[in-house]
């Protein structure tokens, strides 16, 4: 009889233990910070971000704040993080308090009521610390959904040594760009002038925007209505131009962000890298660089040299999620983590970020910074500051990820020779209109 009882106890103990173990899995959300918490008693705010050297920025914040401490996790870069965030929204728990989001996906999350309107938390007071273009990317009417951090004004990074070898001047317009590509090919260069990736996503979109394409009309204050015109004349002209270059073999059409692409960027296969301000940081992070490479930066080629148009590729923000427990403290983190000079020194020097915070953006320090990678060139002064100043903001769709995937598919069909530029954009238009209608939007 006794042994029986003990068996019952043992069996139920196993059952209880496994149940307890399972319950514990569900709760172990906290206390997984990558950084050390300096002030244990303070309110903790969890942050997801993937900036390089962000640990130093977090440490700086925690050292200078007694009442709030940041608990940082790197939940993956770009889509990897968004996937996790999206699942957490659907599940109703598991999202961080503060999250790094690229400006282009903000409306995809505001439409799911996942982000807090920071207008009520004193964030609108710091609007003066950002350029108008940057602020318009994070706000809609009176609402502010994120605090801008870094930007991606576009420029042209080129290999001085390669262009010199073939006697080509860095192109200032797209016409010159084509001529340069033709010359390079005519002289039998082993590489090509540049690459036009079909999976460039925001990159392709930015090139269209430079000619005046406005693919979406959308406002978070009226979330059920959307205007779609991805096949406007501007986009058609730009894509037609690139189709010509690809068909004539003057530029490559390799997938971006693959190991092959990374190698080609630095081994001299592409003489020009059309890049955003974070591009230099990306280049320096790649291995197997050509030791003789002489990189220089120049403004992005223009359609009309008289009236230059500046565009943006990428750039990110900090938003506060609806799941944040202490929204006040979370808003404070979003506001202040990159809201001081020390943090930005780390951001600029260690992480090669391009600040949108004007006290840093407009500082002499930033303007006069000499980049060793570019042979001591002051790339901010010569290229990116102008590019950032001219940027007026851009409207993305609330299903940007889908729109980009479709764009990639259509561009691939085009480079494979199955469609011309116009047909590719028309098909894109049809598929996005269908999708928007399926998702319950009213088309403007």
């Amino acid at each position, binding site marked *: 009889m006794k042994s029986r009882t003990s068996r019952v106890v043992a*069996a139920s103990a*196993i059952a209880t233990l496994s149940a307890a173990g399972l319950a514990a899995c569900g709760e172990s959300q906290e206390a997984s910070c990558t950084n050390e918490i300096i002030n244990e008693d303070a309110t903790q705010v969890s942050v997801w971000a993937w900036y390089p050297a962000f640990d130093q920025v977090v440490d700086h914040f925690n050292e200078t704040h007694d009442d709030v401490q940041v608990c940082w996790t790197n939940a993956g870069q770009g*889509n990897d993080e968004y996937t996790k965030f999206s699942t957490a929204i659907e599940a109703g728990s598991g999202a961080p308090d503060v999250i790094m989001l690229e400006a282009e996906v903000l409306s995809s999350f505001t*439409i799911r009521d996942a982000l807090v309107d920071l207008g009520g938390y004193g964030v609108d007071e710091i609007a003066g610390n950002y350029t108008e273009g940057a602020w318009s990317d994070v706000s809609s009417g009176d609402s502010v959904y994120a605090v801008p951090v870094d930007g991606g004004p576009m420029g042209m990074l080129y290999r001085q040594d390669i262009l010199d070898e073939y006697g080509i001047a860095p192109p200032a317009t797209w016409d010159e760009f084509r001529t340069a590509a033709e010359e390079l090919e005519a002289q039998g260069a082993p590489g090509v002038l540049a690459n036009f990736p079909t999976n460039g996503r925001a990159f392709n979109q930015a090139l269209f925007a430079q000619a005046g394409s406005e693919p979406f009309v959308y406002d978070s204050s009226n979330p059920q209505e959307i205007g779609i015109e991805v096949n406007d004349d501007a986009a058609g002209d730009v894509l037609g131009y690139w189709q010509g270059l690809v068909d004539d073999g003057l530029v490559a059409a390799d*997938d971006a962000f693959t*190991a092959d692409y990374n190698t080609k960027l630095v081994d001299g296969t592409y003489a020009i890298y059309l890049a955003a301000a974070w591009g230099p940081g990306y280049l320096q992070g790649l291995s197997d660089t050509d030791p003789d490479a002489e990189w220089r930066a120049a403004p992005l080629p223009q359609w009309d040299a008289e009236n230059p148009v500046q565009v943006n590729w990428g750039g990110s923000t900090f938003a506060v999620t609806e799941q944040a427990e202490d929204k006040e403290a979370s808003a404070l983190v979003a506001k202040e983590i990159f809201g001081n000079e020390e943090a930005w020194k780390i951001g600029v020097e260690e992480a090669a970020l391009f600040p949108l915070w004007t006290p840093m953006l407009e500082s002499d320090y930033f303007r006069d910074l000499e980049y060793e990678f570019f042979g001591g060139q002051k790339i901010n002064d010569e290229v990116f500051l102008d590019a950032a100043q001219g940027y007026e903001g851009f409207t993305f769709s609330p299903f940007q990820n889908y729109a980009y*995937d479709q764009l990639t598919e259509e561009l691939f069909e085009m480079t494979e020779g199955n469609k011309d530029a116009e047909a590719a954009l028309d098909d894109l238009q049809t598929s996005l209109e269908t999708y928007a209608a*399926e998702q319950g939007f009213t088309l403007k």
Partner: protein
Amino acid sequence: MTTQATELDPETSRRLATSGSLLVRRRQRWGWLFVSPFLLIFALFLIIPLGYAFRMSLFTSTLAAGTEFTGLANYTRAFTDPLFLEGMLRVLAYGAVMIPTQLIIAIVAALVLDTLTSWASKVTRLLIFVPYAVPVVIGALMWSFLYSPRFGPGATIFDAFGLEAPNLLGPDTIFFSLVNIVTWQWAGYYMVVIYAALRSIDPSIYEAARIDGANGLQTALRIKIPMISSSMVMVVTFALIGTLQFFTEPVVMQSIAQGSIDAAYTPNMYAFSLAFSYSQFNYASAIAFSLGILVFIGSFLFLFLTRKQSGLK
């Protein structure tokens, strides 16, 4: 107690009978207690999520209009969705090429290894099996480097002959590139299953066959293969289910061949991107369930048709 047992009135016998079933029931209660940890985990990680997913699939949630109950509308949509149906046809095509290829390699290797007894056969057996021990993601990553037009050996070899290397990641070639990865990974595993079945056959049968004048090939085709048919049915069932749920390899390869492998390349990938890239969790659940139903019907049909061979009558 014994005195009462001598004269049993109906009342007592009824009581005894109930106490007997009470004993059985008590024993059963013990059984339930012992399987309870398993049942708990089974319910928590399979039954409840499945039920939850099915419930989700009955709702439709759109970005602009919110969530509403739509019954089986998602299923109607799934079975008329060209992306889902194309994906389904694609995995069937993969199955038609991949399953026979893997099976033939596995059988030939197993039959050859079965007749050899030298140390070389043991080493060979291990070598054929090794790819299965490589995690699928690592295997796919490794192959994507081999296929790479820049790092891969193909480029070097073709260069040596002054030829241009074929693009193994193009839209026309990606099919066979993927078939190659899966075959490389799984043929060894199936070979081991078949080999184990071959080893369990009584060798005296071979002796009888030899006395009857059968040569090696005849023994293999007429005796060995029929005798291991139940293992073969199992192997094909595994391969069938695996192929219909094709996911990991194309996802890994997608990062280097975006144009050739789109987000709806296989039904599983389609469900994944719907849920996690486009936040259409409801429709994704419906796609996942539809795929599940088709996999179930497919494997059931196959097992039904081969019930004689597998001994599952």
